[in-house]
């Protein structure tokens, strides 16, 4: 895959975080979705690190 390939493809965007960025995407008619993000593992960082290690 190359970056220049992206330039020949229709942009389809996922927004995770600030709502106004999602508003801007919708305003431009771009296929887009908003992730209702929450801190993983209830924000418990030790648990999060554990989960990371388990995934590998």
């Amino acid at each position: 895959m190359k970056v220049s390939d992206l330039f020949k493809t229709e942009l389809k965007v996922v927004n995770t975080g600030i709502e106004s960025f999602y508003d801007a995407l919708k305003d431009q008619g771009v296929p887009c979705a908003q992730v209702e993000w929450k801190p993983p593992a209830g924000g418990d960082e030790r648990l999060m690190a554990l989960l990371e290690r388990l995934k590998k």
Partner: protein
Amino acid sequence: MVRKSIIKENAYYDSVTLMLISSKISGMDGVENAAVMMGTDQNKDLMYGSGLIDDQDLAKIDSNHMVIGVLAQSEEIASAVVDEVMTSLEQKKTASGSGDIRTRTSKSASERVGGANMTIISVPGRYAKHEAMRALDLGMNILLFSDNVSLEEEIELKEAAKSKGLLMMGPDCGTAIINGVSLGFANRVSRGRIGVVAAAGTGLQEVSVVIDANGAGISQALGTGGRDLKAEVGGTMMLMGIEALIEDDGTDVIVIVSKPAAPEVMDKIASKLAETDKPKVLCILGGQMESNPDSGMYYAKTLEEAGVMAAALSKGETVGLTDLEELSEDVQALIEAEVSKLSDEQRYLRGLYAGGTLTYETMLIVKAFIGETYSNIPLNKEMALEDIMGSREHTVVDMGDDDFTNGRPHPMIDTRLRVERIVKEASDTEVAVILLDCVIGYGANEDPAGDLARAVVKARQEAEAQGRYISYVASVCGTESDIQVRSDQEQKLRDAGIIVMENNAQAARVAARIASRDQAHRA
């Protein structure tokens, strides 16, 4: 004094939304203090320390909770504040409307749009790497707005992205224009054949706007994040971006925007650029280089110059020798008129900026007229402000820097800090001119010029009551197609008696000439 706290389970709202609401409610009548935040450890401490939540609350709250805390003069007022918060949040949700796709994971979001190739990530820094790695695994190019991501994490992310042939623009990168789509804080500009790679957010915005104003357009505009050109990162994204623009059939001219980088990184960039015959414009703010038209390499001293050169090259025109620094008679007369209204005691320039790159550019430009300036991001370490909340002599501040924003939305979104600072600067009897940027476009405040204009009117009245005139100069970074509409914003500023120039470089030169009484600086 009445204290009220509400804890909502399993509610998540982004920090900007909550901060804007917090701003609004703490300004309500009869409210001593109020905030609505997610229940992270840091936020809990903040709210507890301010007396907005008590020990019982502290024990119950975790980061999955949304917490409203109020200290008000009466129960009625406290309840009104809570109602205001709930209404604001409801409005946000219903404003979403149909066609809204909301999911819990990036994987399902990607599926819902039929395979996403791009993601914008703006979660708190400590979670950013986790989200970004996942996005890369799903084959998405990334615009990473999050900051407080470590250098090590940045390097890891960029190596992973490079191995997959994906962009990892960031961290602390909020601006890109890809396939004609404005991502993050970006302006709506004409589509054209000029490609930009920028290690500078408002630098990218300003150049794209100048290009648009000069009758040309953007093919692709990529950000790299401010640390990309450090030796440790090696310019990974800059090089990937340049390569992509070299290969892109839709790009005829390549523009690079950055500050001076590590020499070995500059060498790599130069070698990469030499691989193409496409004309190249390099705006290395603070660098000193000579253009070489034979090799198609042009050096621009300012963002304005970069935009003007690129537009000319893209239209097949010769890059003119017109000196952009030359003043028209009208502008000359304007400057003289302003100077005539100042007293001898008024000597200082105060630049109050939302855009970091624009701040940097201004400090470079005004140096020839007024010498070195104090700042929170000074060109010279010795010119660092001891107290960033108070200016000293000639001062230009980047109010979007972490030291100012700590816990508040960026000044491009929330004008409050700048509005207060304008009024404060105007009370200083030694101030001659106040210089502002006004960045519009996606992501920005819905009416920054309105807020700034009102502040200037107030500041002006207060100074006039003391028999003082102060000069105000500004520029709008934006286009007619931006939601705020450039000409509307410019008119609002002008109606407040602010001198509005076409771009930041022009505004900086005019302001510097006013402060220096049009004399060049003697070092």
